């Protein structure tokens, strides 16, 4: 464990910010450029994970474990979200025979 802590020393918190911002932006780009609903949900998972890592990094920096508890709750939320979302996708696929997000444009004006 000592070596792990030594590995950590020297990485500025800014680099965690840069890294998590890039991962979050990759998630946003994935939502924008893909039409497959499942891949869009995977991009949302990517965004949630970026935020989780940043929360954990700040929690370690401030020596306060509330941030890590919050990450735990976000993970529970993500599990619930994925279960309901995939059920909805299966229902949509049964009706439209496609996972294309553009087949769901009936609500658009």
């Amino acid at each position, binding site marked *: *464990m000592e070596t*792990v802590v030594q*590995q*950590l*020393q020297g*990485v*500025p918190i*800014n*680099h965690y910010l*840069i*890294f998590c*911002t*890039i*991962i*979050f*932006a990759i*998630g*946003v*780009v*994935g939502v*924008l*450029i*893909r039409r*497959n609903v*499942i*891949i869009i*949900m*995977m*991009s949302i*998972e*990517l965004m949630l*994970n970026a935020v*989780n*890592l940043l929360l*954990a*990094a700040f929690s*370690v*920096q*401030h*020596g306060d*474990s*509330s941030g890590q*508890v919050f*990450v735990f*709750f976000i*993970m*529970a*939320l*993500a*599990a*619930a*979200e*994925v*279960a*309901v979302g*995939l059920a909805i996708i299966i229902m949509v*696929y049964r009706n439209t025979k496609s*996972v*294309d997000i*553009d087949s769901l444009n009936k609500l658009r004006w």
Partner: protein
Amino acid sequence: MTVFYLVAFLSIFFALMTIFTKNPVHSVLYLVITFFTFTVHYILLNAQFLAVVNFIVYMGAIMVLFLFVLMLLNLNKDTEPMKSNLVKFMGVIAGCCLVVTFFGVYRVFEISNPLTVVNPEIGLVKNLGKVLFNEFLLPFELSSLLLLTAMIGAILLAKKEPKQI
């Protein structure tokens, strides 16, 4: 210190592969590798409980759920709907703008102190369990209610409806 940069590079690479691969099954597999690199990040932060939970819940449960749904729907490269190149290009430009905006908001290029571990014990199961069951007891129980609701909702939604005439 160099381990962080290596793993961060791998995370970004596999995240990019996730959204740019055409085959959805490959996409899920790349996302599994991305989550594994996130687990390594948690270990580097000495957040051991989160590392284990990330490993089990994300890589074990959620990704297997995605993979099962992909195989249930029988998706592959040929049925994959793709957007036009113009939309893709605009999406990438929008993402770059988002990155620049966030960098400006966080002022990331100012000099900051290296991350120091104030208390190396906070990420361990013993400490987190104490916090979770003292201060966060009510949210913990509410999250169990949320999971139960999600389970019932998923079953009700995915169940085949009887034919209505």
